[in-house]
Each structure stands twice: as structure tokens, then as C-alpha cells.
């Protein structure tokens, strides 16, 4: 406690190489919980377009990182978060939160969800559709926050209050996922570069 009576935030530490044991035990190689959390972000009743997100997390040498855990947090198709302080309601079973891990061999990660709608910004502004992502891994001392935006939302992205806050326009592109189709399903590619050329923008939120 400081002399004004505030407590200090508990310091962060890396999640380490075995984060799967606690947060994704089946990947660690054993079955312990009735249900692992974060496996279904949108649920079966969610409105909106079903999409898949895929990517790699790449280190400063250009190599994929194969022991990352990523959490996603997003609004539903109407721009409502599954949280009591977000105005509006979400569909039954919509959590808006999920966690995925990178494949031990390839480093690829991915999740299925619905495309979020625009959400309110500060002072009456509107935020373009986006998914908040949080990365932890061995070698990462404090979880890294970033945002995924969609390349088919160019006009909304152009006025998004967070994207436009980034004064280096070339860096803004690191937050935009690119759309393609596979078997009739929209797939957005989002590679995250931790360090070096085209380093992804990370936020202190």
C-alpha cells in the first residue's frame, strides 16, 4: 500500500512454456476438467456472419512461435459485449471470449466465431468492427494486447478512433486481417509479428 492508501497492481510474469497445463490441459496431454473454457466464442445462437480467423505469431528471427496462448474478446454482430456494463443484450450462449493455442509443430492458430458489429467509442464516436487479442507465451513478460480489424471494412477502418490514433500510417496495416474464402466460409488471415519488419502494433490499454 502506498501512502495515499492505494494498493499496487500485482506484477506480471511470463506464462512460461507450459501454459497449456493450466489453460488448455488436453493440449498438454491430459484430461482433467469436465469442460475446458474458451472453446466456443459465439455459441450456436449467434446472429451474423460465421467466420474463421487464422494466423501465425512470428518472432524477431522470422520464425513462428509454437507455444503461444491467445485470448480473443469481441462484441456480437450488434456490437454488444457479453458483459453487464455493455448496453444491450447478447444471444443465449454468446460469450464473446475464447482462447486458442498455436500448433506445436506448425505454429498455426485459428478460431471460429461471428464477425462483430461496430461498437461505441468515446464521446459519441464509433469503433470499426474489431476483435481484441491478448497474447502470452514463454519470453513474453507482460501479455501483449492488440486488435484485429477486417480488410473488407475499409470505410469504417478509415474513421476508427484507435486506428487513426496510430500516427505512423504504415503501421496501421499490421492490424488489418485479409479476407479470402475456403469451402464457402470466409477466412481472415492475421499474422502477428512480435518484433522486426512490419512489427504488429501492440497497445497499453
Amino acid at each position, binding site marked *: 500500500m502506498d501512502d495515499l492508501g*492505494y*494498493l*499496487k*497492481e*500485482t*506484477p*506480471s*510474469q*511470463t*506464462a512460461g*512454456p*507450459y501454459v*497449456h*497445463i*493450466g*489453460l488448455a490441459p488436453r493440449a*498438454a*496431454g*491430459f484430461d*482433467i*476438467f469436465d*469442460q475446458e*473454457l474458451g472453446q466456443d466464442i459465439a455459441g450456436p445462437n449467434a446472429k451474423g456472419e460465421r467466420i474463421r480467423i487464422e494466423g501465425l505469431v512470428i*518472432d*524477431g*528471427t522470422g520464425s513462428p*512461435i509454437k*507455444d503461444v496462448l491467445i485470448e480473443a*474478446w469481441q*462484441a456480437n454482430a450488434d456490437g454488444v*459485449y457479453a*458483459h*453487464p*456494463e*455493455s448496453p444491450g443484450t447478447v444471444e443465449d450462449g454468446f460469450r*464473446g*471470449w475464447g482462447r486458442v493455442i498455436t500448433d506445436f509443430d506448425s505454429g498455426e492458430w485459428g478460431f471460429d466465431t461471428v464477425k462483430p458489429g461496430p*461498437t*461505441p467509442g*468515446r464521446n*459519441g464516436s464509433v469503433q470499426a468492427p*474489431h476483435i*481484441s487479442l*491478448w497474447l502470452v507465451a514463454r*519470453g*513474453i*513478460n*507482460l*501479455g501483449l494486447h492488440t*486488435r484485429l480489424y477486417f480488410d473488407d471494412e475499409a470505410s469504417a477502418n478509415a474513421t476508427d478512433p*484507435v486506428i487513426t490514433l496510430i500516427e505512423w500510417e504504415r503501421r496501421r496495416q499490421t492490424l488489418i486481417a485479409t479476407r479470402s474464402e475456403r469451402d464457402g466460409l470466409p477466412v481472415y488471415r492475421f499474422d502477428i509479428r512480435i*518484433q*522486426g519488419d512490419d*512489427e*504488429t*502494433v*501492440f*497497445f*497499453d*490499454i
Partner: protein
Amino acid sequence: MTTPAEYYQRDPGRHPPALSPRYKTSVTRSPRFALISLEQRVSEITGPTFGHGDLGALDHDLIKNYAQDGDPIGERIILHGRVLDENARPVPNTLVELWQANAGGRYRHRKDTYFAPIDPNFGGCGRTLTDENGYYFFRTVKPGAYPWRNDINSWRPAHIHLSIFGSAFCQRLITQLYFEGDPLIPRCPIAQSIPDPDAIEQLTARLDMVATVPLDSIAYRFDIVLRGRRSTLFENRLEGN
């Protein structure tokens, strides 16, 4: 419409810097550009919520939740404490998850090849929700130290990994707790990646003889502090006291 108040800015001096060269893996896994600081919006002041329906009855009891034909080998401990915010207000109904090695320092993970044996009765993970007062507890065995490839003779102090959600995505935190008096703490590049000695002290669980169960389990106390938030709302701006 009222808008919720925002959270206090994170004090970067409290946390390890992204680049901590003595912890070698951080060298290629740390951004070179500075983080861009955001004023909070609804995306940051909301976060996932959890209920008792998400958890099983033994999820907080690592002595029993993977027991096959007996109890795990090791020092039986109770780990307990409160989750508070920086205003010292309890954080109720928040998910606390934990994972750890067994008493010999071996993890039940397909990638761990350390030759200390797996304990057939110990999984090493657990989770619980804080109660209305922000209180949580686990039962487990005290983990052992283990070697890791940093320097050739690097050993992690005994530690338990903790994951805490809070009520907002901006409070999301993963950390590690250490045990009071462990001589490996001052030698550990991961613990010492935190520049402030007082902050390292905050990661040290205290022996708690009051909560110790006689002839059964010794107790350690570990309180967790998440970011606090303003309490006063002004019109429709995200502001406060």
C-alpha cells in the same frame, strides 16, 4: 445512459520490461516499438464473466482432482488469499486459474523432458471463482524447483503460475507466485526481470500459520491486486474522480 468508469493506467514500473536480456527468450519475443497507450473504450472496460456452471466440484483441489489410486506425493499446502483492486475493494466472482509442477519439479506436459518422474496422482492444474469478498483458496502440493535452459545452470525457484481475469479485459493478468525464503528467487532471471524489489516481494506468498490445518496441511497466503477504477461518473464521458 451512464457509461462505466475507466480503470487506472497501468504503472509500467511495476512490471518487467518486455526486453529482459538475462531472460534469453525475451530477446526475440519483445516488441522493439513502444506500446501505444489507449484511452479506454467499451472494448477494454468489459471482459468475460464466468459462473459456477463452468467449473467442476474438485477443480480447486489439486490433491484430489487428478488422484487415480491415492494422494500425490509432496508437501500438502493450502494456498489462499483475496483478489482486490488498487482501491483495496474485493473483486468478487472472478476466475482464478493456476498450474504448477509436481513436488519434484516435473510438469505433466508432453514437452517437459526433465527426468524427475511424473506423479501418477497429480495433474497440476486448478481453477476457482472468488467469493463475494474476493476470497479464493486452493489445496495442492508445494512444487519443486526445476532446471531450465537459460544459462546452463539456471533453476527456477518453486513457483505456481496464476491467471486472473478481473471484470475487464484490461485487468487480465498472468503471473507467478514464489514462496517466502526461497534462495533461488534472487538468482532467477525471470523473477529478477522485475526492476522493483518491492514488486518482487509482492509475488512472494507468506507462510500462514493461522490458516494452517494442524496435522494436515500447511498454509500460504497470497493476495492478488488488479487494476482499480475510478468511481465517479461525469455525463457521458468516460471520466471520473
